[in-house]
């Protein structure tokens, strides 16, 4: 146990430096980073589409302003929580650059986490115009709800970030076994787009599909925080879903770390 504690202490000490380096990298590649952000334009397209649909009346609980609020919230949550771990791990396992990370006296997962956290300020900067639009157009729907829901929002966002991070690590570990995790990653993306609320508000799916999406982890990565933000979730339900989300966070983290350990043992650095 002392080993793990020392490990953690060392990581904590190195973390500020890692964050600084990561931030400098993001600043250096800011234009490229912006292009990446722009690729997340699907919610805006879907928003335009549902606006056309809702022109002659609301769809369920969704009228035009609600759709605007929903998709902007989805966009914000997605941009803040997304990461490219699976892609990065797949690359690093294949071309062997992971071996350099394994040699360092700090666990690669901490380094990866620092990498992604340090991109967050830049992400927030790029996301801020969307947040402003969201606040201006949908203030009533954001501010108008229960204070308890507002309390849920913070932990829900952190939970979503962690859930995304560990899911991606778990997917990335596929690369240890089949050399490229890209196939698994694409498959995951296809499922995620539908059942996370990214493309369509989950409420608009047929009832049987909703029971499925309530059980699957995807909803808790995206739709849950976004819906909480725009006041689509009642306080009691928000608390219950927060608990489910964190259960998923812990389970996914445990699975990802176990898979990582098993994977690294198999890891043969090609040409590294």
């Amino acid at each position: 146990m002392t080993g793990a504690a020392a490990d953690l202490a060392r990581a904590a000490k190195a973390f500020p430096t890692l964050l600084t380096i990561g931030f400098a990298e993001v600043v250096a590649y800011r234009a490229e980073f912006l292009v990446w952000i722009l690729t997340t334009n699907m919610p805006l397209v879907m928003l335009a589409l549902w606006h056309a649909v809702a022109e002659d009346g609301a769809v369920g609980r969704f009228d035009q302003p609600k759709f605007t609020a929903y998709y902007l919230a989805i966009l914000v949550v997605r941009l803040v929580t997304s990461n490219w771990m699976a892609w990065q791990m797949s690359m690093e396992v294949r071309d062997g650059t992971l071996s350099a990370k394994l040699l360092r006296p700090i666990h690669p997962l901490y380094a990866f986490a620092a990498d992604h956290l340090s991109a967050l300020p830049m992400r927030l900067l790029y996301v801020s115009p969307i947040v402003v639009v969201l606040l201006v157009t949908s203030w009533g729907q954001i501010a108008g709800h229960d204070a308890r829901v507002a309390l849920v929002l913070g932990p829900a966002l952190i939970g979503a970030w962690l859930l995304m991070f560990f899911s991606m690590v778990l997917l990335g570990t596929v690369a240890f076994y089949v050399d490229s995790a890209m196939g698994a990653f694409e498959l995951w993306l296809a499922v995620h787009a539908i059942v996370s609320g990214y493309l369509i508000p989950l409420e608009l799916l047929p009832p049987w599909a909703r029971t499925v999406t309530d059980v699957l982890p995807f909803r808790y990565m995206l739709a849950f925080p976004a819906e909480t933000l725009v006041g689509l979730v009642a306080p009691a339900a928000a608390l219950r879903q927060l608990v489910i989300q964190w259960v998923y966070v812990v389970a996914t983290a445990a699975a990802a770390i176990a898979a990582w350990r098993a994977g690294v043992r198999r890891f043969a650095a090609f040409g590294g």
Partner: protein
Amino acid sequence: MPITQLIPRYARLLRVQVGMSAVAAMQYRVDFLVRGLIAFLWSAVTLVPILVVFSVRDALAGWSFAEALIVVAWFSLLRSVLEGAVSPSLTAVVEHVRKGTLDFVLLKPADAQFLVSTAKFEPWRVVDAVGALVVFVYAFAKLGRWPALPHVLLALVFLALAVVILYSIWILVVSAAFWVVKVDNLSYLFGSLFDVGRWPISVFKGALRAAFTFVFPVALMTTYPALALLGRMDARTAVLALVGGVVFAAVARRVWKRALGMYTSASS
């Protein structure tokens, strides 16, 4: 070389290049199957939003469910062309430029643009095209009528035009590699914008519609061929679209030539 010799020569070259890709792909049979499955799943995902929209409304911006499905089918068909025949080769060019290995291509006694554009095919994308055909058949069965021959012919012309435009935009993106080197994320941006093509263009309003018709003409690639197939395309729009497409391709070819002039191999 006279054109009568040029065409058979390039046809033969094309056959060799396609054959090479097919052989390479068949070496990895499991990967081939998995990728086919993924392509199929993506086709299914493409359909979900449209099913949901039409479960709450009978018509969307003047398009019935069956008519909108035809747009989706064109979209799937073009995506299979894009991801099966256009983007793998051109992604390889970006790699060539970065590493300086484009020299080997330029030294060969054939047109460089032709060689790089046919370097790699991904045969499992055929799954998407088959899916598209199924959707076509289903949509017309639902409409209760079959397209007339002239409409089919016009639609095929538009298909050719769509492929040309698709390819031209890609060439423009790749040409950017000669100036800024790192453009792999531009290709993702391209892919995400192309996704808009699954919806009839009339869904969008104002600036968005103009942008997707004239600047990044996905409307020309999916909505217009669908209109042609449905027999709702008027002659004037058809001619204008065709002229626009040809001009677009000519510009892309010129830009590629300019870009090639900029190329400095990695060692020099």
